[in-house]
């Protein structure tokens, strides 16, 4: 069984490392710091249908992850593991008054924290990128979601258009190739 050492890593690196390792392995052992890294990784693998056992290891933890009852989708047939992608193309939800649209979109994102099943990835495009940049009311929430294993990407072209490349405060930049791949290979795309 492979072992990965995520001790000393800052959020969201532990979850991302485990996620990457699980793309190539069906089981693994991971060393983690106590607190948020252990909670976030445990939650993440449980949500993916894995079973885990946790053992205290000095100041940290050793978590052993093994397949659960539900088999994972084979990587040969689907490049992504049937992920759920949230595509957000505006900082407003709906066509009505701007203020209402902004309020609704903020509320939607805040309420994601209470969802029983989180999306695997959030893609921001067009005005959507404003939500991940300085001044957004949902940065705190996006960073929390990121820490819980939700990948967050903003379109680089859009950030450049709005002159916000240097003001990205949550998640990473992406390009159209990754966006297209993400959408075509996803099991479910929710477009707001």
């Amino acid at each position, binding site marked *: 069984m492979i072992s990965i050492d995520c001790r000393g890593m800052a959020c969201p690196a532990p979850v991302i490392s485990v996620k990457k390792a699980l793309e190539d392995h069906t089981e693994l052992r991971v060393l983690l710091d106590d607190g948020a890294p252990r909670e976030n990784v445990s939650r993440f693998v449980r949500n993916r249908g894995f079973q885990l056992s946790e053992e205290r290891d000095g100041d940290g933890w050793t978590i052993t992850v093994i397949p659960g009852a539900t088999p994972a989708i084979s990587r040969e047939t689907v490049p992504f593991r049937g992920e759920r992608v949230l595509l957000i193309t505006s900082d407003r939800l709906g066509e009505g008054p701007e*203020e*209402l649209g902004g*309020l609704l979109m*903020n*509320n939607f994102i*805040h*309420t994601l*924290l*209470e969802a029983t099943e989180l999306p695997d990835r959030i893609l921001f495009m067009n005005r959507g990128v404003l939500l991940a940049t300085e001044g957004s*009311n949902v940065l*705190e*929430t996006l960073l*929390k979601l990121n820490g819980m294993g939700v990948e967050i990407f903003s379109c680089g072209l859009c950030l450049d258009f709005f002159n916000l490349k240097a003001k990205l405060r949550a998640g990473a930049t992406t390009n159209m190739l990754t966006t297209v791949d993400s959408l075509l290979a996803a099991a479910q795309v929710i477009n707001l």
Partner: protein
Amino acid sequence: MVSEGHLLAVFNSAHRVMKAENSLKSIGLPILLIPAPRKLQTDCGLAIRFNEEDRLGVMTVLEQEGLLPEFISRLEAGEYVTVWSCPDQRSSATL
């Protein structure tokens, strides 16, 4: 979203809470407009989250602007405790 000790001013009117948010932000108070947590049992209620140290500033502004909330709760030991209720129902009219 809400940590121990945070205060939530709950409004049941979108217009009032948006005006309140604008007023409070325009003078630089560190507040955040969020959906009211499920535990508070308001349907589509909205809340303005702030810290105890900003309570006086927040309440002063809201009172001056005629934008008092329905009530204010504080998260204590995992439960929401009402710490203030609007005394005059007319000044907290909902849509």
